[in-house]
Every structure is written in C-alpha cells, then in structure tokens.
C-alpha cells in the first residue's frame, strides 16, 4: 500500500492532500527561511490518528512535521526534509475549564481568540503573549515558551501537564495526568507538573519545536481577568530611562501588563492598517513608551487600583517622570480598549499589526537582562544602518519577565516580501545582527531556523546531549528532522 493510501486510511479522503497549492501553503511561512514542500498534508482529528500517522512514518522512514497554528512565523514548521505535514488545527477543542484550580486543558488547534473569549465567560484569562496572530495556536505559544505581557512571577511556567504522542507513536501523559483513566475516570486533576519519575518531562518537550513529541493537549494555568483596569502610556526619550522605571515599578509588585515599546512598534499596534494614524503616531509618540496596566482584583477592584496607582506615582517621583499619561494623542479611548486588546489575539487577520506596514516582518528576539537592552538596541541599529535599513524603521519590544529579572528583547524588521533586494539585504542583516547579539551576551533560548546552527555550534555539550536524547526517543529521526541541532 502506498504511503498516501495508508494515510488516507487513517485520516480519510478529506483529511489528506498533496495538491501543489496545498503543499505550497505549508512549504514556507512568513519568515525569511527558504520554503521546502512537504510530500503530503494531513489533518488528523484525534490523538489516535496522530499516533497512527507517526507509527506509519516510522515504518516508512518518512519525516513528520507537526503544526497547529494556521500561520507560522519563525521557520519552525518548514518541512526541511519534506515528508508528512501534520496539521493539527482540526484538533481544536477546549477540553476543560477548571475554574476552581484555575486551569484550562486545550487541544493544539485552539486559537488564542477562541481560548480567551471562552475563558472570559468565567472572568478568567490565559496569560497571553503580545498580540498573537488570530490563527495562532495557544498551545503552541505555551510549548514555545513565548513571553507573556504580564511579568508576574506567578504567571510564569504556566504549562503543567500534557498529553503527547512520542516519536514511537506511544501516548504519554505527563505529571499527575499519567494516572490511568485521566481525566474522566481518574481522581487526579492533572495539576502536578512532576510525575513519579526522575524527570520533568514538560520542560524537555517545551522548546523542542516538534522534534521530540506531538502535543495533543496541554493543561495550563489561567488567572482572574480584571474587569476594572487603568492603562498608562509613560513616555521616555531614552530606553535606559524606561528600563530604570520598569526596574523600580516591578519591585513594588504592582500592575498587570508591563511592556516597553519603541515608537514604531507602538504606532504599528495602535494604528492597525490605518496609514494616516500610523504617521500621526510616529510623529507624536515618544521614542519609548512603557505600557503599564493596573488591574483590579475580584473584590474591591478600585481599592487595588488606587493603592497601585499611588505606588506608581511614587516611582514616577523617584525617576523624575513628570507625568503618567493615560491616553495617546489622537487615539481617544485607547486606554479603555487596550486591556482587552492585549488579553487576546489580534482581532482581524487582514490588519495584523506586523504585516500592515510593509507586508511582512522578521523578528530577531533573544533573552537578556534589562540593563543591557540599550546596548543591544544601539548595536542592532548601527548594523541596520550599515546595511541600508533605516534604524528609525526598526520596531523594538522589550518584555520584562519575572518582575524584571530578565527580559525578552525583540527587534522587528518590517519589509516588503516582494522586494527581492530588500529580502536579500535583510537576510544578511539578520544573520550579522544575531551573531553580534550572541557575541555581546544575548541568549537565544528559542533558536529558530539558521539561528539554531549558530547557537548549537557554541554549546557543544548541550547539543551533544540533545542529540543523545533525540536518538533514544526518536531512533528513526522521523519527527521534524533537521530542526534545532538534529
């Protein structure tokens, strides 16, 4: 029986395609990475079908590349050695909302919009990265350790238990979800991340970019969604001053969302697809803005906001910040809208903020400490200038993490994907910028595409250990071969 026939037996005729259009749709993504066509695209509808596909892949020695979002950004779903593209978007149920323990269990095809709107009915929310694309899978964000906009320590390590199909096709549930019969016939509630054994498996699967297992559901923490909020847009001329402010306000353990955006990124976000708004904002916004949202609690929300605002005023005094604006010129009411905007995905795919300006955006992101961000900002800007990319057109986003203990630093290079020269220039700039960041101590905790080569060349023992792990778990190297250091 041919591979196609075997796959058809598993997912049905509607669930498989190898038409050129369909293959092309999964060959590449919005990144600069070169596309590679898969051989087939399949859409399983259950964990059991996923298992059967992977067993078949092992039997036929054909790669399998899982994906769940309808859109991809960093090259981590490009089928580098062709094979079976396994699109999990049809496995898209929210399986359980546990209000009491504050967890949600969801499948890979659940988008952020779907998740947050469902949770909002319970006054709950999952902890969201910055304005994910409407089709972005919430499960993937958790698996990929995307940074959240709320830098509370309590809101990190949100993923606790998961169910995966391992590279040999076996189903594996982690943590206290491993109890037989979980969840329906088990007393366990699946909230304990560590199972009975020696290892903390969710950690190993996170950041693996589909090379060590395919998640069929995850259970993650959710929190109360504040109903009463107050938003501040605090302007700064220098990034260092913004960083100093954030260091201090985070020490007070107040606030919900806290992020630093440069003028370009904030303008792109606030203007959507309206060029006139974008121009107006580019002229009016300060070089840097700390977006800071206070959120009330379930009881006496105004009291919480009042004392937190007082703390904010004190910090402003310490930093000689003259005022704390709650508005943006030319954008009336944005302060009331922004909390809801930030607590879900971008609403309209056609106006997605990263694509509206020039059609595409290449992100260079890494981890560092906040005090070093001005150095990286300068370095990247200088390199950009050397390559003919206007530094003023780079978007910068600094996401403090864990009370400002370190941060996610992101440079957004907006470009026209149809301009071959610009694409070529950007590839060189990107590579050089990444190398320079690494030399200056930036850490690529999530190395995608060619960055992975750069990173793993320097790690030696880390990549050697990963390879040993991969060899044991996936001896036939069927899951996403060629990814990371595999």
């Amino acid at each position, binding site marked *: 029986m041919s591979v196609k026939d075997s796959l058809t037996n598993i997912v049905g005729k509607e669930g498989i395609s190898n038409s050129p259009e369909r293959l092309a749709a999964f060959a590449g993504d919005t990144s600069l990475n070169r596309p590679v066509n898969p051989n087939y695209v399949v859409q399983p509808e259950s964990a059991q079908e996923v298992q059967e596909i992977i067993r078949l892949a092992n039997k036929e020695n054909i790669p399998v590349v899982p994906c769940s979002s309808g859109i991809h950004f960093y090259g981590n779903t490009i089928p580098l050695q062709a094979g079976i593209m396994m699109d999990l978007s049809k496995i898209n149920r929210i399986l359980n909302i546990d209000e*009491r323990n*504050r967890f949600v269990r969801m499948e890979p095809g659940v988008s952020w919009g779907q998740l947050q709107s469902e949770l909002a009915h319970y006054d709950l929310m999952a902890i969201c990265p910055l304005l994910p694309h409407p089709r972005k899978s919430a499960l993937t964000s958790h698996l990929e*350790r995307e940074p959240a906009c709320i830098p509370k*320590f*309590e809101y*990190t*390590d949100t993923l606790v238990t998961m169910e995966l199909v391992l590279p040999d096709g076996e189903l*594996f549930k982690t*943590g*206290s979800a*491993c*109890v*037989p019969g979980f969840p329906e016939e*088990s*007393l*366990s*509630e699946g*909230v304990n991340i560590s199972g*009975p*054994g*020696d*290892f903390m498996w*969710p*950690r*190993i699967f996170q*950041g693996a970019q589909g*090379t*060590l297992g395919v998640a069929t559901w995850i259970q993650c*923490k959710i929190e*109360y969604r504040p109903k009463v909020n107050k938003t501040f847009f605090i302007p700064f001329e220098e990034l260092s001053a913004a960083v100093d402010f954030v260091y201090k306000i*985070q020490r*007070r*353990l*107040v606030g919900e969302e806290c992020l630093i955006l440069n003028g370009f990124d904030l303008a792109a976000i606030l203007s959507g697809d309206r060029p006139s708004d974008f121009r107006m904002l580019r002229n009016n916004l300060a070089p840097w803005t700390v977006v800071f949202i206070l959120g009330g*609690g*379930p*009881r*006496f929300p105004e*009291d919480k906001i009042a*004392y*937190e605002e007082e*703390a904010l005023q*004190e910090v402003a005094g310490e930093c000689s910040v003259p005022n704390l604006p709650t508005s943006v010129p030319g954008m009336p009411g944005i302060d009331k809208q922004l909390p809801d905007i930030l607590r879900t995905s971008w609403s309209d795919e056609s106006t997605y903020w990263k694509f509206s300006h020039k059609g595409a955006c290449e992100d260079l992101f890494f981890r560092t400490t*906040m*005090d070093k961000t001005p150095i990286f900002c300068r370095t990247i800007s200088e390199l950009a200038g050397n390559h003919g990319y206007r530094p003023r057109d780079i978007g910068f986003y600094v996401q403090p993490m864990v*009370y*400002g*203990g370190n941060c996610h630093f992101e440079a957004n290079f907006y470009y026209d994907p149809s301009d071959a020269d610009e694409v070529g220039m950007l590839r060189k700039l990107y590579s050089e910028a990444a190398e320079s960041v*690494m030399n200056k101590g930036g*850490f690529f*905790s*999530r190395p995608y595409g060619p960055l*992975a080569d750069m990173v*793993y060349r*320097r790690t030696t023992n880390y990549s*050697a250990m990963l390879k*040993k*792990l991969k060899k*044991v778990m996936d001896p036939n190297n069927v899951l996403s071969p060629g990814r990371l*250091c595999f």
Partner: protein
Amino acid sequence: MTLPKEAYEALQSIVGPDYVSDDPAVCEADRPKGRLKSKEIPLYKPDGSIQPVSTEEIQAIVKVCNRYHISFACTSSYGSDVWGIERPNWLFIDLKRMRRLEIDENNLYAVVESGIASAVLQGEAFRRNLLSFVPMSGGECSVLGNASYIGEGAISWKLGDRGYRRILGVEWVTPEGEIMRLGSLSTTDDYFCGEGPGPDLRGLLVSSGYGSASRKGIITRIGIRLFPFIKEKLVPQGDAPTTSLKMPANRFAWYNFTFPTRKACIDAIYEIGKCQLGLLAMTVPPWFVSMARARATGTDKPTGAAGFWYDWNNIRGPKAKENPEQTVGRILLYGIGSDKRLAYEEKVLLDICETYGAVAKKSRGLQDQTHFMSADAIVSNLAGGRFASIIFFESLDSALKAADIVNEQTKKRVPKVFDDHGTTNWFVPFEMAHIAKEESLRFTTVEFEDELTLLMADCHGQAAPLGGFPMLPNPKIYGEVWGDYPENDKKILRILDPNGIAPP
C-alpha cells in the same frame, strides 16, 4: 570493601590528602541511614569520602569513578538522613566546600554553589531588600540541593510550588563526567535565564522526589531567583529555642481564620488565591500549637517532648477529638510596594471570611519563628524521636481526599503511631491555590520506625489514583499507575549514565 589503591591515589591527587579519606570513622560518619527506606533493602556505608571545591575537581573525580567502576553519591548540606545507597563500593562526594555566592541585585538572581545554605542566602538577600526562598525542610538545606530536589516551603504560596520554578542557569557534571551548562550559561557567562536553548534540559535534572538526587549526576552551580522585598528589616530576637524575626507592622499582618469544616476552609483558600493575597497561607493543624508550646520556656509547664504531650493530651487533643472537622487557616498578609496595600489585603480577606462563614482574628504578635528562615523544620522529630511526612502534591481538593486516605490508614496503626483524631493533616496551598501539598506528619519512637515506612507505603498505594506523587514513592507500589514513566525514564538514565555509576 575499600577503594582500589590506584583510585584512592588518583583522588588524592585531585583534591589533596586533606580532603579525601577512607578512615572507617569518616565513612561511618558519612553513612546515610535511609531512615524511611524499607528495612528489606540493604544499605551500605561509603568506602571513602571526598570534598572537592570546584566543578573541575568534581569532573575529575567522576571520571575516576567511571574508570574504576566506583559508584558515587553526593550531598550538599546533608540536611536529611532519609536516603540510603543500595549498592556497595561507593564514594561519598560532599560538596560543602563549594561556597561561592554572588548576587545580582538589579536582575534578581544569585549564583550559588552547592555548599550555600538556604538561610545564608536569605540573610544575604535581606541585606539587599530582597527575598529568597527557604524550604520547609530547614534553613540549613543547600539552596542548590533542595531546589533541584523538592524545594517547597511556606512561601511557595507566592514563590513557586517547588524549586524548579526558581532555578535559572545550571552547571552540572553528568555521571559520565561531562560538564553541562544549561540555559544562558550554555552560550554566555551569565546565569540569568534557565530555559533552553531549545528543549529545556533542566527537565532532566529536577527530580520529583524518588530515589537519590545524585542519580543524574552532580549539579555544581545554579542561578536562583530572588524576589523583591520590603525596605524595612526583619529583626531577629530571642534566644534559642524561642527565637523569631520581628516583622514591621506596616507591612505584615497575621490572620487566623476558623472554619467549621475542612472543606469550607479550602473553599475560602481558593478564593484567597484568586484574589492573590498574602505571602503565605495554610491550615494549622492543632498539633502545631502543641509543638510551639513545647518549646516555650520560662513557664512552669513541661517543655520539650513532655511539653508537647502535656499540651496535646490535656488541651489541644481533647478539643480536636471533640470537633475534628474544625479547621484553622492562617495567612500572612503582605503590604509590599505600597503603604496602603496591607489595608487592602485585610479588607479583602475579611470580606472572604464573611462570605465563607469564618471567624477571622488578627494575631497580636507580629513575629515569625519559622517561615522566612525555616528554623523549626525538624521539630517534628521531637514528639517521639521519629516522624514521617506523608506528602502529596496535587490540587487542594485532592489534598482533602488524600487526607482522608491517610487518616484511614493511620487508624490501623495506632497506638504504635500517634493518634491525632484525624486532625493533623496539613494543607499547604502553593501558587495561589493552583496546586497544594497535603502533608500528614506521623510520629513514633525509634523502636517503631518501621511502622512509619509501612504506613507510608499503604498511604501511597491507596492514594495513587489521586496522582499526587509524593516523596520517596516505592516503585513496587505504584506499578501501573506510573504509565510510561518508568520506561521513558530508564531510556534517559541510560544516556546520562551509560556505565551505571550513579546511585540507583
């Protein structure tokens, strides 16, 4: 058995003659007794003891062990005697000489080596208006050792359920003798980030409490999170055994709240977690009060173990027997960041208590004996000489079910094991009630220590379906409940330790 002569000489050349010994007294002093392991499992004392001072020395030692096929096990603080080695011919690697400690105040982390005790890091953190984490097992526990093993404590309510939440970059020597650097340490000299690159190999290191923590090798240095804290100082006062930290009244308030039933208390704790109040919250079993009275001095009542039993048998115990369901919760409200925060927390707490039918009482004294520095960790041994913690980590609701199972099993072993009338289950919620620990402390005398081991086994077996995998579970008991864990774990252990050197 003795170590091979050539191996011993090699070890001497690595650390110098002062820091390695095979003297029988040294080996006897280092013998782990495996107190709560089943007596059916034979345990062995080490054939030698060595104290390296650097990662490179440890690497060299481990390579010698691999060459001469000598097992090893290590400890950082020797804060416990519940582990034991089940094979002969092994070397005890004591990491206490590794005492590097650096703090990055701005970026809220410290770099610590194995020999740094949790209370020491806390002291240094306090100097800088920062807060570190001290586990319930005691302030003397190694920061690194404890965080990579369990790492739970009173302040896990706010600072993460267990140590894995706080570990950043890691330096680790594998059982084969490779030096691994994880997180940001893999490509920089910094410890600020623990994840990646790519898959997070810290997942290979953090244990769930089964077996010896050295079985994956030896962690030598970690970055560990610190947290913002108040400017005001906690002032030590008193002479042992009644020392405490005096807390500033504008930043802290202790509240007790009494509920008619355990469930009502748990319901309220869930709500308190949702409102994100406080620095710690838990229930207070009545025997805690008896234990606190046991250490009070300057009174005419008995103290020590006699004091505990006096208080329990005459005061706390009869009350508990009359009304075993009545449950006292305790919370430390935390006014960090704003002078008005404490008032807000109090207002919300009282509102919750009213909703759930509790009587809330603010404590007069504002001091802490045990939560910040964990000075009282091993007091549980006082009552009879031996105790066992039967612990489950799952949801708070599961904790209640686990408690019922433990109480049922305990009844079968009374009076060899302390009869607490079903009231000494201790519910310690973590992470704002996302997850919780149920800990039942069971006492007995040295003579009946085996009863505790058997009781633990019974409880683990009965409560296995709850999934709250506790410390020291015997794999024979869990069997199928473990799903694929044993097989998957074995595969990975073979990668890490192909020569079978690390302890089983």
